[in-house]
């Protein structure tokens, strides 16, 4: 699953961006996305995409895999771009480039920042029930993914996806039903243990909100450079 892949990159990375503070990375991403949104020309967008590609290589992320992940969500933009500006012209390309760069921005962010740190940061702005549920979602994904993988493998070995479309859908649904039942049991056990450990409506993270370090400077320089480029190009 993509979330596990990117989280692994974030946890094991050692680059300046990995070591920068979460808040700075968040601000950097927000600036780039805003530049992408307000851009009205192909030149600016190509500049941003090139800058992002150089950054991906510089911080030693797998560029091919990240580009693949960035192309997947572009289906909607393609439909939108073709139908709004038929058949396919300058404006269509503009829409596609905007989506591509915006997706790259968040993929760079999650490749350099573990999800737990992002959730801790968001915890300062979101209601605690949502932040806590985000932590539980994150933990549960890693617990359930293993179960789901095992079930899928067994299902394939036992021929669960042979025997036609209806049979495959039926078996796949039973498998999901099983995962849901196990998930609900898991949530009950998790809630019990949370209560036993004194949970009173907030999972605390010791991380402070306003933390900056030397590594942040590079991301701010890049952000300012992008703003200048968007203005000048």
């Amino acid at each position: 699953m993509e979330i596990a892949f990117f989280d692994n990159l974030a946890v094991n990375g050692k680059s300046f961006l990995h070591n920068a503070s979460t808040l700075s990375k968040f601000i950097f991403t927000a600036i780039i996305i805003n530049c992408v949104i307000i851009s009205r020309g192909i030149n600016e967008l190509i500049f941003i995409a090139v800058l992002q590609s150089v950054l991906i290589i510089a911080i030693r992320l797998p560029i091919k895999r990240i580009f693949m992940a960035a192309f997947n969500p572009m289906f909607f933009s393609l439909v939108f771009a073709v139908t709004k500006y038929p058949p396919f012209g300058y404006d269509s390309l503009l829409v596609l480039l905007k989506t591509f760069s915006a997706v790259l921005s968040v993929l760079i962010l999650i490749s350099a920042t573990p999800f737990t740190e992002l959730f801790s940061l968001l915890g300062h702005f979101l209601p605690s029930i949502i932040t806590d549920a985000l932590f539980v979602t994150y933990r549960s994904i890693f617990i359930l993914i293993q179960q789901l993988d095992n079930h899928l493998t067994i299902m394939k070995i036992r021929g669960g996806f042979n025997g036609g479309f209806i049979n495959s859908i039926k078996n796949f649904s039973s498998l999901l039903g099983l995962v849901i039942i196990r998930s609900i049991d898991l949530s009950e056990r998790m809630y019990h243990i949370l209560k036993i450990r004194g949970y009173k409506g907030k999972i605390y993270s010791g991380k402070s909100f306003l933390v900056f370090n030397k590594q942040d400077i590079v991301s701010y320089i890049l952000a300012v450079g992008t703003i200048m480029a968007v203005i000048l190009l």
Partner: protein
Amino acid sequence: MSHLHIPDGVIDPIWLILGYILTGLVIFICINKIRKRNEEGKMALLGVMGAVMLLAMSVPLGFIPFHINLTALSGIILGPNYGFLAAFIVNLILAFLGHGGITVVGLNTLIVGSEALFGWLFYNILKRFLTRRTSAGISALIAIIISGLLVICVISITNLEPEMVFHLHEGHSLSDNLHQHSNSIYAFALTVSPIILLGGAIEALITSLIVSYIRKVKPDILK
């Protein structure tokens, strides 16, 4: 895919802000209702169902080029308040993965959250007359069609740029501009409708089969 997650760069900033404000308001109402009903104990279930939705989306149905997301089913299991919160959580995480823009989380949550709400609503109405399995399937299909229509509406409204109405270029009338706009929306709707319908039908079938399985193995979940 049975869902269309709107990416960044397609919608004007003013609509994005409005989307966030509306989503914030709905979240505020949902959390208040949860607190009034003392339902905070379902927090872990909310988190785990969010994980299930994300996992369901990640499973490629090798035999067809779609993915499902079980939002209507989550609405049935979690109820409308937690269902909406689950939609927010899933959209937020998906936005970090590039599926749906980070600036569009507000609007996407309203769209996907409506699916949880309508899934829950129609299921509870239909189960009085039909079997739970059939009710779940039909309610999932209706909910997906409604959320699909909402996507078309959002794209239609948010792309009606103010300049188009107020700053008319020489030789172009307001009706010309609106006509051009409605043509592009019509083309957009025509392209995405089969996707929504086919994806919706598959998700409805799977939802109904999952409910059937749960009824056999652990019926108390659906009480």
